[in-house]
C-alpha cells in the first residue's frame, strides 16, 4: 500500500473540491442571504439535500447524471471528458457533498454583516460589485474561512457518494476513507488504523487552522 499516494491524492482532490465550492457557493449564499425571489425556498432545499440524503443515494444520482449515457456525461463525452471512475468523479462527489456546509456557513456570515456599512460604501460612490468585494466579503471573512474548512473536512471524509461514482481503484480513485474501508474489510487492520491516524491528523490541522484564523479575524475587527 502506498500511504503517501493515498494521503496526497485525498488532500489534493479535497483542496480542488473546496476551490470549486467557492464560486457557486458564494453566489448561492449571497442569493439566499440577500435576495427575495420566487423559488428561493426551493433552491435552499435543493442545496441542502446532500446533507440529509444518504450519501450513497447522492452518489447514485450523480452516477446516473454523469455516466457516459447520462444527460451531463453524454455532453462531456463529446468533448472527451470522462468523469465516472476517474479522479474527476472523486472531486465531483466531494464538491457536491461539501457545498451545502459551505453555503450554510457563508450565508449565516453574510446575514451577520451590518447593511449600514454597505449603504455607506454605496453613498461613497462604490458600485455594487466593489461594495461586495471591499465591504461585504471582508466582513464575512471568518464565516468564509469556517465554511471552506468545513467543506474541506467534509470532502476529506467523503465516502458514500465517492464509492458509487468513483469506486475504489488503487492509485486512481482510492481516497483515505475508501481505503480504510477496503483495508478493514480485507483484514488489513494495521494499514486501516494507520490511515485513520492520518485522517485524524488532517482533521486536527484543518480545525486548528480554522480556529486560529477566526481568532485572528476576531482580534482585528
Amino acid at each position, binding site marked *: 500500500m502506498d500511504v503517501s499516494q493515498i494521503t496526497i491524492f485525498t488532500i489534493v482532490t479535497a483542496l480542488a473540491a473546496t476551490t470549486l465550492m467557492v464560486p457557486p457557493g458564494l453566489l448561492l449564499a449571497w442569493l439566499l442571504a440577500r435576495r427575495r425571489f420566487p423559488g428561493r425556498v426551493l433552491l435552499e432545499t435543493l442545496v441542502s439535500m446532500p446533507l440529509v440524503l444518504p450519501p450513497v443515494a447522492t452518489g447514485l444520482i450523480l452516477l446516473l447524471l454523469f455516466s457516459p449515457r447520462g444527460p451531463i456525461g453524454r455532453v462531456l463525452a463529446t468533448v472527451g471528458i470522462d468523469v465516472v471512475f476517474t479522479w474527476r468523479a472523486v472531486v465531483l462527489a466531494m464538491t457536491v457533498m461539501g457545498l451545502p456546509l459551505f453555503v450554510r456557513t457563508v450565508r449565516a456570515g453574510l446575514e451577520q454583516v*451590518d447593511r*449600514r*456599512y454597505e*449603504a*455607506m*460604501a*454605496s*453613498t*461613497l*460612490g*462604490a*458600485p*455594487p460589485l466593489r*461594495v461586495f468585494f*471591499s*465591504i461585504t466579503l*471582508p*466582513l464575512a471573512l471568518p464565516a468564509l474561512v469556517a465554511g471552506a474548512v468545513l467543506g474541506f473536512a467534509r470532502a476529506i471524509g467523503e465516502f458514500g457518494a465517492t464509492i458509487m461514482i468513483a469506486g475504489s481503484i488503487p492509485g486512481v480513485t482510492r481516497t483515505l476513507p475508501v481505503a480504510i474501508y477496503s483495508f478493514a474489510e480485507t483484514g488489513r487492520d494495521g494499514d486501516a488504523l494507520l490511515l485513520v491516524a492520518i485522517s485524524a491528523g488532517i482533521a486536527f490541522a484543518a480545525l486548528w487552522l480554522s480556529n486560529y484564523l477566526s481568532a485572528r479575524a476576531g482580534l*482585528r*475587527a
Partner: protein
Amino acid sequence: MIVLDFTLQQGEFRLQLNEELVGRVTVLFGPSGSGKTTILDAVAGLRTPSNGTIALNGRKLFDARARTDLPPHQRHVGYVPQDVALFPHMNVRRNVLYGRRRGQKLSLDSVASILEIVPLLDRQVVRLSGGEKQRVALARALMSAPDLLLLDEPLAAVDFDLRSRILPYLERVRDELGVPIIYVTHDRDEARRFADHVIVLANGAAVRSGPPQEVLS
C-alpha cells in the same frame, strides 16, 4: 438648489414634503419619529419614495414620473449617519480614502488638517473616541467630493464638552469647503447657530419653514 418634493410611505408612517432648499445649511428640526432620518435616507438613495421628485442642482436624483431612481453610488451625496458606520476592517486612512474620486480638488492632507485627524490616520477605528469617529466619518464623506452633505445628528452622541469642539469643524466645512449641508438635529441651539434655513418637522410633514430666527423663536 435642492428640491425635495416627494411622498414616502413606510408602513403606517407617511412622509410628505414639498421644499426647495437654497441656503448653505438647511436644518431639519423636530422630535424623533418626525421623519428627519427618513428624508436623509431618501436623498441618499437608501429608501425609495412612493412619489414625487428629488433634485440636486438641476440633476434629477429621483423622479417617479420619469421612472428615474439613481442608485446611491451615482448620486454624489455624502452621508454621515448617526452611528457614523466607519468600516471596522479598515484603518482610518483607508476609511477616509474609500470614496476618493479621481481628479477631485480636495486632498487627503487638506481634509485631514481641517478636521485635525492627521495623527489618527494609521489607527484602527475601534480605538477612536466618539468625537474622533465623527470627524473621520466627516472626512470620509468629504473625500468623495459630494455635491451635498447629509449630517444626521452629528453631535447627539457626544458630550457637551466635545460638542463645543466639533461644532467649529462643521463650521469650517461649511465656510471653507462650500459644500451645501442638510443637517438633522433636535437641538434648538445647534439649529440656531448652524442653519441658514430651518424646516420644522412633525409626524412626517413640514409644519414651519424659514430662517432660524423666525422659525425657532
